[in-house]
Every structure is written in structure tokens, then in C-alpha cells.
């Protein structure tokens, strides 16, 4: 199996970020087809058949989510494109937005037409200034062509699309925190229910998807839901973007059919471990997904179920590769430092828990660990995940447990040998 370029098609072509070149490759044909030849119900049906699942991390079926929006409800309804891309290891959305912004926009307009939405916001993380400018430019082009604004393609359908710039907060990737941020507040997650489909942005019905999810929509409309579904497995339709980084020969963003064997991706396409070294471990879907050992990767397929059956998650498709020389205690320490920095602080178990976790990982890494520390992590972990407002609690607890369970001897060695971990001045500890 090779790469299958649906979203990434023509991504390296000169000028692909312009409407003209995008259109020359068949861009906006799906939008014309959706608006001129299909009813909203027919579009929804194709998306359901396509088996497209949300690419933001949780994998919720898109067709089901679209079905939650009541078209006939009065008042404005909103769309949000989640371009906060903050999960460590993830770098796919930035690439799509910078090089192929029109595929995101085309997908958004089709979704908005299907659900009868009035306006949309692309929430771009503040660091992504270049993608933000690329999206703005593309949106202007789409307005000029009549793909956005009033009476789109003569259909009587009106839809406005705007960019928004975040300001540095991982937690704003959570859809409800994101909506609070868009409303000009601190980006703190909201309790669910009510769900965004009933009570979203400004309290109005709202649909949120990741950049990649919207980008899949044009191909589904152009080629049919069945075509898309057939690219993947019976439960996960289509292609998925995988970003592979770390100790790998050819790091980068690749698009693969869901269900592609891990071995083919890692060895044939990404070139295996860098410098012919041995593999130590892999994080399969971003830093919030539990680390996997080489034997757990045997026979694994790149789809939601196969990775879940090994106790981890497909997540955002952000694969981080560690070779045999990697200090996994340091990796775990750095991951926990991230979470301790990013908790929004409104739930006590999460706010205190991630600080405790970091304290413990930090003292082990500094060579001041105690023997009971690993048990302490195990015990603490039971009280965090189930008692928090958002999934952030689980996002640091499950990977922490995987690190200490799978690399127990490495941690014990640090604890036994003491002060050889953090060489003075190696990191700032800021």
C-alpha cells in the first residue's frame, strides 16, 4: 500500500494555495455539485455513508454530529473549525491551512449548507500566524468568487466565514473552552451537557470539527460516500493524515487509508528508525495517547479500533518515534511538565493532580525520587479522570500510567541511582 492523497493531493504544486490553481485541480466542483444538484438531506446521507469520523482526536462520527443540528430552529446557528492544533506531536492542520486553505473552506461551506448554518469561525492558534494569513487570503478569494457571503451560487443560501486568532492556551483546543475563548473570555471548558449542538457559541446551536475533518468533505461529495468509506475499514472510513516525528528516517505528514498496516507506514513509507537504530517505543496519536512498545505494534493497523485494542488511541495521528538511545524518564518528565503548565485550573483534581504528577516525575528525573513514588502515581490517578469537567484529566493520567508501567525498570533505576538524571543546566525548569 502506498500513500493515498485525497486531502494532500497536489499539495506540493506551485500556487496550490490560490483559488485559481486549486480550482484548476477540480477545486470547488464539490461545492457546486452540493449546492446545485443535491438537497441537504442527500448531503447528510453521503456523509453518513462515508463513515467519516472526527479527526480532532475523539473520532466521533461526523454524520451523526451533523444530524444533531435542527435546521428549522430559529435564530443564528454557527460552525467552528478547530485549528488550535496544540496536542504535542501534531503538525498536520498547519500544513493543510498553509498550503491548501481552499480545501478547508470548501468543506466548511458544504457542511454549513447541509446543516443550514449562518456563520463560521476558524479558530487558529495564536502561534500560527502564517496559516492565519493564508486562510484570510483564501477567504477573501472565496468571497470574491461568490462562494461565501450572500446568495451563494444563486442558491439563496447565505454564509459568512471568519478567522479568529487564539493567544496561546492548549486547553482552547477543547471545543467548549474554544467557544468561551471566541466569546472573549478565559478559555475554560464548559460542563457538558448541554452539548454544542444545542448550546454552543453565544448559546446557539453550533457544530465543531477539526481542520482535517472539514477537508475530507469535498472528496466525499465529489466521489460519493461509498467511495470514501471504501478507502478505510468497515468502521473507520477514508484516509487519515499522519504526522510522524522524532527518531525516524523521513519525518513529515503523510496521508494513508485508514487500516494501513503500521509496519508498511513506518518501514516502507517513513523509512523506519533513523540511522538504522533499534526501536524503543512509539507514541501513536499525540502526547495524550499511551506509549506503545515494539511488540505491541506487531500486526497493528492504523485505524481507531486496532490501536485501541492495544490500549492506546489513534488520537490526532501524531506518531512520535523513540529509538533505543531515548531516555524515557526524560520523555515522561517533559510530557508532564507540559500538562502541569496547561491545565486551566477550574477542577481541583486536575489542577492539583497535574502539579503533583509533575512534582513526582520531576523529582525522579532529578534523581530525588522515592521508592513509593510510582505507587503514588497509580493511586492518585484513580481520583482524577472521572472527576473533571473535560478530558484533560485523562489526557495526562493515561499516558503517565503507560510510561511508569512500561518503563518501570528505567524509573526504578533513576530512583536507585539517584542524582544522575538532570545534568545541571540541561533544561531551564522554567
Amino acid at each position, binding site marked *: 500500500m502506498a500513500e493515498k492523497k485525497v486531502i494532500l493531493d497536489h499539495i506540493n504544486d506551485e500556487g496550490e494555495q490560490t483559488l485559481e490553481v486549486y480550482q484548476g485541480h477540480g477545486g470547488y466542483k464539490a461545492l457546486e455539485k452540493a449546492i446545485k444538484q443535491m438537497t441537504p438531506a442527500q448531503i447528510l446521507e453521503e456523509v453518513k455513508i462515508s463513515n467519516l469520523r472526527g479527526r480532532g482526536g475523539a473520532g466521533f462520527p461526523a454524520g451523526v454530529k451533523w444530524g444533531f443540528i435542527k435546521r428549522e430552529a430559529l435564530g*443564528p446557528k454557527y460552525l467552528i473549525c478547530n485549528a488550535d*492544533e*496544540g*496536542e*504535542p*506531536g*501534531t*503538525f498536520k*492542520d*498547519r500544513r493543510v491551512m498553509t498550503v491548501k486553505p481552499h480545501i478547508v473552506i470548501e468543506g466548511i461551506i458544504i457542511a454549513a449548507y447541509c446543516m443550514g448554518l449562518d456563520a463560521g*469561525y476558524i479558530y487558529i*492558534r*495564536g*502561534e*500560527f*500566524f*502564517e496559516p492565519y494569513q493564508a486562510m484570510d487570503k483564501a477567504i477573501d478569494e472565496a468571497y470574491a468568487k461568490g462562494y461565501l457571503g450572500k446568495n451563494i451560487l444563486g442558491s439563496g443560501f447565505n454564509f459568512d466565514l*471568519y478567522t*479568529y*486568532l*487564539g*493567544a*496561546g*492556551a*492548549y486547553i482552547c483546543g477543547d471545543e467548549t473552552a474554544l467557544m468561551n*475563548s*471566541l*466569546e*472573549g*473570555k*478565559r*478559555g475554560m471548558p464548559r460542563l457538558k451537557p448541554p452539548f454544542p449542538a444545542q448550546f454552543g457559541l*453565544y448559546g446557539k446551536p453550533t457544530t465543531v470539527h477539526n481542520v482535517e475533518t472539514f477537508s475530507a468533505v469535498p472528496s466525499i461529495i465529489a466521489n460519493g460516500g461509498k467511495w470514501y468509506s471504501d478507502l478505510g475499514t468497515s468502521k473507520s472510513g477514508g484516509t487519515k493524515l499522519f*504526522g*510522524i*516525528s*522524532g*527518531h525516524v528516517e523521513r*519525518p*513529515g*505528514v503523510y496521508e494513508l487509508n485508514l487500516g494501513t498496516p503500521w509496519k508498511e507506514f513506518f518501514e516502507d513509507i517513513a523509512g523506519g528508525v533513523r540511522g538504522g537504530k533499534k526501536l524503543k517505543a512509539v*507514541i501513536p496519536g499525540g*502526547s495524550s495517547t499511551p506509549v506503545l512498545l515494539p511488540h505491541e505494534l506487531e500486526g497493528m493497523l492504523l485505524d481507531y479500533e486496532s490501536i485501541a485494542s492495544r490500549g492506546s488511541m489513534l488520537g490526532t495521528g*501524531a506518531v*512520535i518515534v*523513540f529509538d533505543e538511545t*531515548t531516555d524515557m524518564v*526524560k*520523555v515522561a518528565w*517533559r*510530557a508532564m511538565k*507540559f500538562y502541569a*503548565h*496547561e491545565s486551566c485550573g477550574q477542577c481541583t483534581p486536575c489542577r492539583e493532580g497535574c502539579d503533583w504528577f509533575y512534582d513526582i516525575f520531576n523529582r525522579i528525573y532529578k534523581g530525588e525520587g522515592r521508592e513509593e513514588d510510582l505507587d503514588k502515581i497509580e493511586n492518585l490517578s484513580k481520583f482524577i479522570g472521572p472527576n473533571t469537567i473535560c478530558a484533560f484529566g485523562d489526557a495526562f493520567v493515561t499516558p503517565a500510567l503507560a510510561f511508569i508501567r512500561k518503563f518501570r525498570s528505567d524509573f526504578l533505576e533513576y530512583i536507585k541511582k539517584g542524582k544522575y538524571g538532570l545534568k545541571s*543546566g*540541561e*533544561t*531551564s525548569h*522554567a
Partner: protein
Amino acid sequence: MDNMTNRTNEKTKTMNFSFNESSMNEFRRWEKKFPEDPAGRRSLVIPALWISQWQHGYISRDVINYVAEITQTEPLHVWGVATFYTLFKKEKTGKFLLQFCTNITCSLMGGDQVFVNTCKKLGVKAGETTRDGMFTAVEVECLGACGESPTLQVNEKYYTHMTDDEVEKLVADLRKMA
């Protein structure tokens, strides 16, 4: 800060910051994105903070008051928002803000070491600014460019595959540019 002078100067201080013409034009562009009601007005808090920072370099007390005024919110609310988001600078930084990613992949590829070495070469600690006011070096979380790590962001621009030598060259180039 001296509280007395602060209080007496409050009114004049508020007048110390306001949007210049290009900032105002940018703000007008953002106004069109949101509903014309108090909730939509509040959505302008973060964009207004951005525009202020682009103009002024950081979020001062005057900026907070001004943003509250033009978004019809309370200074306390604006302050709460400004402190929640890490990209809003609460104090002046160097002309070039060197933001080194040291998250998992970048550290694996040596980025944490490049950060430490750069600090040493510049003679600053994390978060400090060089005496000539040119460079501030900070450690940041994943920048979403892990495939080309180690990643460095200087003001808005990304630089990838950073090594000690590359950073040294870049620092010299930036010095010349300034």
C-alpha cells in the same frame, strides 16, 4: 509600582494608549466578524489585545483600560483574559522574542540543548532580555511543526531544524537587520 502616583495618574494614563490609524483600521475589520450586541462586543477583547500588542509591544495597564473601553467590558475582565493566554506579554521583551520549543519531539532532536546553549551565548537566563534590548529567549510548548524539529519561533516567524550553528547565524542576521 508606586500606588499613589498610579492612582492620581489613572485618568491621564488611560489616555496614554490608544490605537493609531492602522490599528484602528485593523480593529474595524475585526468588528465586522461578530454580532452587533454586547456578547459580540466582548468577542473583540482578544483581537483588541492582539492589535494593542502589535502596536505597543506588550499589554500594559493602559492597554487594559483602553481595551475595556472599546469592547465595553470591565478592565478586570480584560486583565483576567490577558493573563490567561501565554502569548500576551505582560512586560516588554527584546526586539526579537526567541521562542524555543522544548516539547517531546523537539527535545528528542536536541532542541532543549540548543535553548540552553543559546541562553549561555546570549548571557541571559530563560525569560531574560539581553542588555542591548535585542533578544529575549524563552522556552515554549509544541509549536505544531514537530516534523521539522527542533523548532524556533522568532516573533511571528518559524525557523526549523535548529542547531547551535543555525541559531548563531540567525542571531547575527537579526542583529544586522535591526
